[in-house]
């Protein structure tokens, strides 16, 4: 615990957080602004090298110590970075959509984190629950329901449909949960394609978000200049992500999170100490699907048009690989890995076609050489107890 100040570079408190956030912001802007493949590659490699240097030296220790002891400041800084990025790219549809995708996926993977990372409930159909959110928003929105209600219903529907899978998920022995959720993911896609009500293979339009008399699909004015309509959605997604993040983190740092961990680690011991295994698995599975559905509904509104192709089994695998890559159980790891998985194929067109191959290779590499992920989960911190 004690720091050797002569060797460690001590970055002081909130100022340190702000400094790191500024560096991150600068790098993100440069990287996102770059359009030629060579500069993109240069930024990418320099970023990776920087991370590598931090990881290999003691730098990462002082960084994580600074973050851990100034959590609120760090959270604020990260929200600030996101907002400043949005403002910087306020008229750039493409980049704003990219940022929105990151935030929507990250929210969904946070849900998966509650399921698999905390409670050990495997779910190979996260993208399907995400899709249920999208389609619910499309159908209810078309039927004239208020947007906010559509959003909530997107989450609720995902959670309700998830209840269909509860029986296999609660089976402890064997790989029932894995197999049944895989089957569900495959069936869901087929169901979308054959359902006339849901638009079949062509998909359906999703009515835009309307809130406080503001139509989210209309361009927005900011300081006299015209901004992309995606900006509003990005702000909404940032709010959803921040709330989900805070929720998941509090969950982890509570007796509920502890019980979930116990269920994951050892069901026999949990039962012998009065922990209701089925209850916590149901809670985790439902909460995870709720988060997937919520983010799906909002993301669907942002896309304005959705089709079954986005909710395939392969997309569920991407959600899972984000979690594995980021560090199972670590919410910041989820964010980092989502950024990586979403941005890299977008920025390197060469990779686009081979992205599944890239993810597969990456996940294999991680499982072999760094099974805890990029940011391994820390021990539980219940907050200041002194």
């Amino acid at each position, binding site marked *: 615990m004690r720091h050797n100040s002569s060797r460690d570079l001590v970055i002081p408190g909130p100022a340190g957080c702000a400094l790191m956030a500024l560096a991150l912001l600068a790098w993100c802007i440069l990287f996102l602004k770059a359009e030629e493949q060579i500069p993109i590659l240069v930024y990418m490699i320099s970023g990776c090298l920087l991370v590598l240097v931090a990881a290999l030296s003691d730098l990462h220790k002082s960084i994580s110590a600074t973050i851990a002891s100034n959590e609120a400041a760090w959270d604020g800084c990260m929200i600030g970075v996101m907002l400043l990025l949005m403002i910087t790219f306020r008229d750039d549809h493409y980049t704003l959509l990219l940022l929105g995708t990151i935030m929507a996926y990250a929210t969904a993977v946070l849900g998966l984190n509650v399921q698999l990372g905390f409670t050990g409930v495997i779910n190979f159909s996260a993208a399907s629950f995400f899709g249920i959110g999208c389609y619910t928003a499309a159908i209810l929105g078309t039927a004239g329901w208020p947007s906010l209600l559509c959003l909530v219903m997107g989450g609720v529907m995902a959670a309700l449909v998830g209840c269909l899978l509860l029986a296999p998920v609660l089976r402890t022995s064997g790989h029932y949960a894995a197999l049944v959720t895989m089957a569900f993911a495959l069936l869901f896609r087929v169901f979308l394609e054959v359902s006339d009500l849901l638009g079949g293979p062509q998909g359906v339009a999703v009515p835009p978000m309307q809130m406080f008399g503001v139509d989210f699909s209309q361009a927005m004015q900011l300081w006299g200049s015209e901004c992309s309509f995606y900006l509003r959605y990005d702000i909404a997604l940032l709010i959803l992500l921040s709330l989900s993040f805070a929720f998941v983190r509090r969950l982890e740092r509570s007796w509920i999170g502890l019980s979930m961990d116990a269920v994951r680690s050892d069901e026999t011991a*949990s039962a*012998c100490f009065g922990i209701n295994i089925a209850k916590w698995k149901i809670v985790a599975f439902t909460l995870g699907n709720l988060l997937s559905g919520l983010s799906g509904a909002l993301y669907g509104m942002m896309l304005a048009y959705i089709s079954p192709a986005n909710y395939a089994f392969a997309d569920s695998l991407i959600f899972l690989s984000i979690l594995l890559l980021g560090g199972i159980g670590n919410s910041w790891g989820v964010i980092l890995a989502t950024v990586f998985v979403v941005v890299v194929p977008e920025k390197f067109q060469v990779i686009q076609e081979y992205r599944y191959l890239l993810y597969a290779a990456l996940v294999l590499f991680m499982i072999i050489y760094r099974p805890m992920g990029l940011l391994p989960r820390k*021990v539980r911190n219940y907050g200041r107890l002194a």
Partner: protein
Amino acid sequence: MSALLSCTDLTMRFGGLTALDKLNLDVAKGDVLGLVGPNGSGKTTFFNVVTGIYRPSAGTVVFDGQDVTSRTAQEIYRLGIARTFQRSRLCLDLTVFDNVMIGNHKNLDMGIVHNLLARGRFRAECKRNLERVKTLLHGLNPALVKRVGQPVSMLSMIDRRRVEVCRALVSDPVLLFLDEPSAGMTHDETKRLMDEILVLSDGGKNFTVVLIEHEMEVIRRVTNRCVVLNFGRKLCEGDYETVTADPFVKEAYLGTELD
């Protein structure tokens, strides 16, 4: 004196194998009961049946006046039976505090508002529990107090055992089951651990203990009564002298060790 735990004709079959065979066993309040017997004689199975991990094939278990034969493990824990496991069942990546708190589940407020929103009250509860865990750890090994926030995987085997004992003790059980707490320890370590547990139990005043133990010296020192199992049946019972004088016991189990 009425028994705290009373098992009648308790039978547990695994397929063709009878691990417990019409076992009649009583534990009186205040007992420190030693459960001995050769490998595979059904000692752990007895714990597993009483604590609700297995449902017995036949027979009844009465605890504190209630028939608990078909209760689940969760219900039995809530009635006040806590245990340790022969093979350590700690969550290695969780901290010492987390592991012990898992054992205190019945005293924790699991309410959503309390856990997620009223964080001030939650932290106060957390702090109380932390003090309690530190006190318990101090009783077992003062050096563990400083390590309460470390993952269990960083502890030595004997300290992990202590954490397991702590986890069983933290909920103030009425009846404590210890399944070979000394497995993998030296003689001295075993004695120390047992002394620590005995101090905490205050000779059965605070809680009643059933101890599975292969080390006869430990049995002699800490128990007031023993039951010897063989092939799931009770071979004999009584105090240490009675039991070790039994010719069947000598032959079946203790012969080589006593010579």
